[in-house]
């Protein structure tokens, strides 16, 4: 094992070194458009302007950030929504000319004193869902974009040939250049461009560049992610973090962008020009000390990153295995964190932005690639994180080295590991049932555990294979469901219930069958089933601290709002509750981590000079959250039917699943549904599955009722004009859209609660004023 205190210059990653003729590559660039701008200092966290680029006509211009925009949308994801609203139409789809790819920062983004402060927020109309997808990502791009002078960059239109966009904060110049010879795959192009555009031939200069790219997989699927680079002065390569969800990379490549590069002249600990740098340093140091003293006894993030979750999830029956059929598995211990700990390169600060001592961005250096175009090369694999390991177990792949192989290729091809893994797990289950077979899978034996077949699917997607299966499989579960149903290859119920997607987006890696609140945490979301809105499994299932619908609805109000707040500011959620003060269990509301919430109040005030309290933070999010839902309504997808979730996320779909947890479900029938033990004994499994199915579907509708009510929405899940006005929105166009939608729903009889209530049960009060 490597010991510490190796001088930076002396560290050797052992990776294969790539040599390119960069001069020749650069000579092929043709400048399409250029724009010079005046460099300005950041003021209290804001650059106060955004950058607009139109690739059709080569337009580059600045847009002013108004005080009103800050007040209503705060920054980050909020700014992204505002820019989209001003630019797209209600029928805009992912590949429409007017669709935009937006990367935003947030007022706290780029702070170095508080861990987890370098996040970018990316937004677009997603190919998977046809609505807005937002994704939160690390790497240096967001902070550098701001320090180069812009709170956000929005890119509209499509280029005619492959281009790169260069935001040069050193010279104060934006340019669009053709880039015909650069590699497309991310681990290669980020190295090429980092070397090509670095001002000096040294690591310090290379560290002042960040690149956004997506590889060949993004070009040929709906799972495209964006890779954000951060140059590692020890490994001497740009490492990668992913904006994974919703096909952002697909949109990047559809616009024919090979990469977006940003570069700063200089930056330091006060580049944000905070209002109160003394308080900022004090709050930051306090958290560093907490991580120093407590992380090793809590999550062990500094040692293994988010992979520490694997054993916990397995223990609590929450680790998705064989397409979420089971939550634990006898072989799961092969993927426990100690197995990855052995492989991770140690001794190096692993933050994806400077100053993040949570340091969860682990890597495996000099990993020997086993398949595909880079077979035999030694590379650095960024990760795996928990979700990627969860994809391993979901596909029944129990070898850490194959998880690394999957991780490496997904990243460099620009494929979201979550969507890729969850989709393939579904295809594998369909293969097991004979709904898919070798012939229907273009000759691939896609059965559970076949790691080589998984890699073959990925390589074929990246190579642009036009086989029928690969073409449809690469568009994700929703399209495959429709394809299977259209061909009449299997039972519609099985196909719909087993495929883990909602709104067209694939689930992330948690089993939610026994936690109703978490089913809501995946279903009652804006972009689709991703755990970044709420993670309530322990509160709900293990601690039983939110037993009633009202309690669950309160949690499904507070936590999505709270977690949204990180995205408005350019922050990471992990330092909020992946380390907790030692006295946290004794506070009045441990699940909220009150001391850390106060840190964020102090932090936002220290940067912006505002005087907000914790309620105001929630209000900032509530504005953004409701606006996004309202935009979903406008795009035609913001109502109850869109919050549908597959039954696999609620309970046992198949007899095998029931039998595997028989005791639990029999007890449930007895205790929750009130069927006597004798009767249960005599019932057929299919009959029992049906009773639980009906009961849990009704529970989910009742939960939706309670949550819509709590959020101030109609029974069909539409934000009311009244609610929007209370939040400060006066945009007549938006208010009219909502009013019209509610009137239409009223006529169609959709403004009714979805649950079946008996006399003893209370339904949510329906006395909401709509306008």
């Amino acid at each position, binding site marked *: 094992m490597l010991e510490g205190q190796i001088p930076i210059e002396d560290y050797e990653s052992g990776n294969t070194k790539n040599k390119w003729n960069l001069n020749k590559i650069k000579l092929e660039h043709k400048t399409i458009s250029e724009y010079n701008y005046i460099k300005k200092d950041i003021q209290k966290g804001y650059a106060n302007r955004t950058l607009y680029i139109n690739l059709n006509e080569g337009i580059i211009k600045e847009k002013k950030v108004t005080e009103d925009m800050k007040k209503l949308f705060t920054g980050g994801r909020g700014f992204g929504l505002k820019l989209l609203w001003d630019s797209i139409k209600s029928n805009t789809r992912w590949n429409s000319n007017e669709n935009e790819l937006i990367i935003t920062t947030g007022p706290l983004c780029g702070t170095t004193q508080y861990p987890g402060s370098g996040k970018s927020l990316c937004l677009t109309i997603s190919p998977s869902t046809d609505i807005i997808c937002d994704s939160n990502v690390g790497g240096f791009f967001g902070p550098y974009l701001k320090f180069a002078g812009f709170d956000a960059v929005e890119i509209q239109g499509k280029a005619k040939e492959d281009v790169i966009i260069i935001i040069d904060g050193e010279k104060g110049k934006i340019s669009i250049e053709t880039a015909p010879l650069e590699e497309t795959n991310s681990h290669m192009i980020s190295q090429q461009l980092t070397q090509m555009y670095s001002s000096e031939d040294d690591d310090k200069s290379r560290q002042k560049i960040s690149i956004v790219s997506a590889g060949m997989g993004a070009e040929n699927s709906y799972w495209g992610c964006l890779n954000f680079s951060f140059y590692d002065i020890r490994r001497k390569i740009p490492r990668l973090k992913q904006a994974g969800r919703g096909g952002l990379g697909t949109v990047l490549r559809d616009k024919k962008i090979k990469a977006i590069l940003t570069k700063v002249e200089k930056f330091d600990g006060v580049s944000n020009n905070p209002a109160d740098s003394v308080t900022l*340093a004090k709050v930051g140091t306090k958290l560093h000390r907490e991580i120093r003293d407590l992380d090793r006894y809590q999550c062990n993030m*500094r040692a293994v990153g988010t992979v520490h979750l694997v054993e916990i999830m397995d223990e609590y029956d929450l680790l998705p295995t064989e397409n979420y059929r089971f939550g634990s598995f006898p072989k799961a211990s092969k993927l426990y964190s100690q197995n990855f*700990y052995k492989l991770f390169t140690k001794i190096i600060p692993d933050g994806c932005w400077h100053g993040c001592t949570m340091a969860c961005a682990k890597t495996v250096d000099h990993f020997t690639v086993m398949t595909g175009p880079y077979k035999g090369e030694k590379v650095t694999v960024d990760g795996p994180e928990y979700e990627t390991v969860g994809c391993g177990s979901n596909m029944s792949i129990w070898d850490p080295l194959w998880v690394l192989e999957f991780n490496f290729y997904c990243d460099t091809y620009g494929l979201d590991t979550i969507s890729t893994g969850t989709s393939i797990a579904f295809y594998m289950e369909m293969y097991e049932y004979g709904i898919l077979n070798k012939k229907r899978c273009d000759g691939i034996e896609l059965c559970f555990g076949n790691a080589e077949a998984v890699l073959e699917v990925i390589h074929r997607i990246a190579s642009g294979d036009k086989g029928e299966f690969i073409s449809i499989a690469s568009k994700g579960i929703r399209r495959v469901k429709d394809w299977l149903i259209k061909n009449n290859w299997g039972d519609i119920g099985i196909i719909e219930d087993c495929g883990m997607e909602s709104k067209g987006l694939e689930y992330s890696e948690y089993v939610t069958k026994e936690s109703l609140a978490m089913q809501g945490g995946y279903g009652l979301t804006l972009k689709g089933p991703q755990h970044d809105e709420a993670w309530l499994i322990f509160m709900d299932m293990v601690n039983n601290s939110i037993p009633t619908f009202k309690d669950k609805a309160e949690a499904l109000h507070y936590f999505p709002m709270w977690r949204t707040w990180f995205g408005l500011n350019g922050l990471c959620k992990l330092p909020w509750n992946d380390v907790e003060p030692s006295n946290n269990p004794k506070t009045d509301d441990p699940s909220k981590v009150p001391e850390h919430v106060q840190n964020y109040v102090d932090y936002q005030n220290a940067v912006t000079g505002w005087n907000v309290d914790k309620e105001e933070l929630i209000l900032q999010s509530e504005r953004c959250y409701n606006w996004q839902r309202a935009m979903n309504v406008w795009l035609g997808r913001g109502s109850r039917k869109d919050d549908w979730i597959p039954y696999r996320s609620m309970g046992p779909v198949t007899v095998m699943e029931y039998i595997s947890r028989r005791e639990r479900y029999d007890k449930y029938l007895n205790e929750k549904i009130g069927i006597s033990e004798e009767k249960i004994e005599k019932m057929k499994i299919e009959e029992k599955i049906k009773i639980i199915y009906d009961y849990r579907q009704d529970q989910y509708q009742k939960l939706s009722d309670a949550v819509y009510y709590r959020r101030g929405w109609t029974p069909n899940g539409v934000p009311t004009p009244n609610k929007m006005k209370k939040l400060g929105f006066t945009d007549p166009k938006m208010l009219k859209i909502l009013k019209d939608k509610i009137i239409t729903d009223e006529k169609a009889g959709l403004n009714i609660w979805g649950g079946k209530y008996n006399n003893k049960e209370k339904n949510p009060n329906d006395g909401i004023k709509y306008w």
Partner: protein
Amino acid sequence: MKNSGKVRVLKFYDERCNGCLECMKACSMIHFKTKEGGEKSAIKINKINKKFIMNACDQRGLCLDMCPVGALKRKKSSIVWLDKKICIGCQACIGFCPINAMRKSKDRIEPFKCISCGACIRVCPEKALEFIEKDINDIKEIVYHKQGV
């Protein structure tokens, strides 16, 4: 840069100290060109239970692996040195120093620390401070957490 393998660290004789704090004033002169001492000094003398306690960096270098931009290095003399021009003020070294010897003044965002310059030794009227030489391998610490505590 190859270092010598030995490093000079401060040794304190509490029984000789009279609490005059001249050492702290001399130290702040080095770092901030002021005789204020206090938060601008890398060496600290505290009186706890009628006994003087000295706190200053012992050059163990745990912070070296913490720095994301490589602003902390061992100099040729083996002392741990913070380069203000490279530092981006993240405070990670301050937070992670196990003996809280990395300092921060309100005057600037970058931290500072004892550089074994000897200014404090020279001004001490009671000869309560002196340099001793230590082998780096005996004092060096590694930041990476072992899994499972």
